[in-house]
């Protein structure tokens, strides 16, 4: 039971990633494709945070550095923050691309946005 509880975040990661990839592969609406990408990003961020969790671990922040056994370097948390920021930037840029595409083509259907061929 306890083992299952430990695996729970990773199961969530898998579910999120599968939903995200499914949306990216099989949806035709660009906005939905980008939503799929957002879900995939969330899955990766959750994965990073989940790998970094240590039971009753404490981050050695200046004022409350604990004894050595409980001390956990918050590296993955820092990585996740960075990755969230990057994710925001990419998604925002791609959404603005989608806006321009909608203005120029009058559609966000990925099947009809195919001027580049060959």
């Amino acid at each position, binding site marked *: 039971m306890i083992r299952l509880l430990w695996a729970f975040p990773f199961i969530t990661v898998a579910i999120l990633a599968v939903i995200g990839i499914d949306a*990216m592969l099989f949806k035709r609406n*660009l906005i939905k*494709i980008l939503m799929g*990408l957002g879900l*995939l*990003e969330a899955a*990766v961020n959750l*994965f*990073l945070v989940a*790998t*970094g969790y240590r039971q009753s671990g404490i981050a050695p922040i200046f004022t409350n550095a604990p004894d050595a056994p409980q001390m956990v*370097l918050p*590296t*993955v948390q820092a*990585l996740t923050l*960075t*990755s969230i920021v*990057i994710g925001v*930037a*990419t998604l925002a*840029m*791609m959404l603005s*691309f*989608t806006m*321009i*595409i909608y*203005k*120029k*083509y009058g559609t966000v259907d990925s099947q009809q*946005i195919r*001027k*580049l061929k*060959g």
Partner: protein
Amino acid sequence: MRHLPALLVATPLFAAFFMPLIGRAGQTARSLWVLLASVATSTVGLLLAWKVFTTGTVLYVFGAAAAGQALPMDSGGIPIRIIFEVDALSALMVVIASLSSLAVTLYSLVADSKSSGQDGFYSMLFLLVAGIFGMVSTGDLFNFFVFLEITSLSGAALVAFRIDKGVAVEAGLKYALLSTVGALSILIAIGILFGQYNALNIATLAARLQFTMLDKVALALLIVPLAMKCGAVPMHFWTPDAYSTAPSSITALLVVSSQASLYGLFRILFSLYGDVLQFSWLTFGWFLIILGVLSMFVGVTMAILQKDVKRLMAYHAVSQTGYMLLGVGVGLAVLGNREALDAYGRTAMAGGLFHILNHAMYKGLLFLTAGAIFYRTGTRNLNKLGGLGHTMPWTMVFFMIGALAIAGIPPFNGFASKLLIYESVFRFNPFLSIIAMIVSILTLASFVKVFHSMFMGAPKAEYAEAREVPKSMLIGMGFLAVIVVVTGLMPRPFIDHMITPAVNALVDRSDYIVAILGGK
């Protein structure tokens, strides 16, 4: 001199973020700032590379008391800071990016001066340069991911820069989407590796790697996106779109950013996973060789069909990437066999790495000439162009230099690197070498056709207005053309002082680890 690795990234970043501010003072101030920043960046890059080639690997530990102190006193032998580790291979890439970015900015000062949004354009351009420099010089896996994302983001924004009735934005979106998914896959791999070994530093990871099942998954998650980003064939479909719709100056830089991904691929296969792959070097060598042969062949056959000159050149870029993969792949395949490695493995790798340098120069030159023609005629369609040799003689000469170099005709630099590849690959497997030669002949055929339809024939009435492009564009192209000719006429010094150390950096894997962790 001590802070060169930090300046390598700081200079272009500084230039990029001050661009909107300087831009308010007007066009002239901005152009001066761009010129100054570009010269400064390239100077820092070349100085750093010179330092590496003369004194060996340069370490830079951010925030440490001494720049070379990789292991803090009380950390128990773990490098906890972000470390830049510039060895000979990184230095080679730094040289390529420096030369290329200098030529590109000179060229773009006039070529892109008509479009609006100049501040954003140049900010993105310098971010792209910063990203490339970061990717090739960092010694930290997560840092590599961050720089990869900076490169992809600014690259995609620049691809979409000329909206071009939405077509460019379509290509930009495709590029951004694929890059982001690829980068996420790399991030998962980083998470897997960190979860097992508590380290992000490539050297530390390489020393600790056990090659568990999870490590194999991480390896796949790392090499597939990097192979995609460098445009190897089953995953090349974004290349023609992005390369053909971006402004030409940017395309020349995108070639370099693809090569930075290629660098990542080699770094991971040799430096990170080199030792644990010991029993499957042959397999992974063949993996690179097959990717390479597919890229060479599919790239060139697709190129022959194209009517858009930049799309055609983009397919040739895919094809030329194949040569690099082939050369280095042969080196990886014989890594375990010391005799074969000394007999031809090192030469093959030297050919592959030399081709990276040469490709960046002649391909950059070709894209810039295509941009020059687009600048004067407003079209990239080969069926409409013609007779430009009468009015644009310099552009024609530069195009000829680039075209002969890509086809591997002596005395240009493409010949120098291709000859190394042919002769060494022939001893590994004659069949592969023959494919490589056939691809070169097809490349020549394709470029003869392009040359003929763009420059030959009677002057066309609709292009009577076309004149030679402005000086600053000619200087940018001439700079690259001179490098193409010089490296072609005298390849020996380049091979001895730049390429051979880079090959050794890949082959002698322990040096990369020892530089950080010490001991031997």
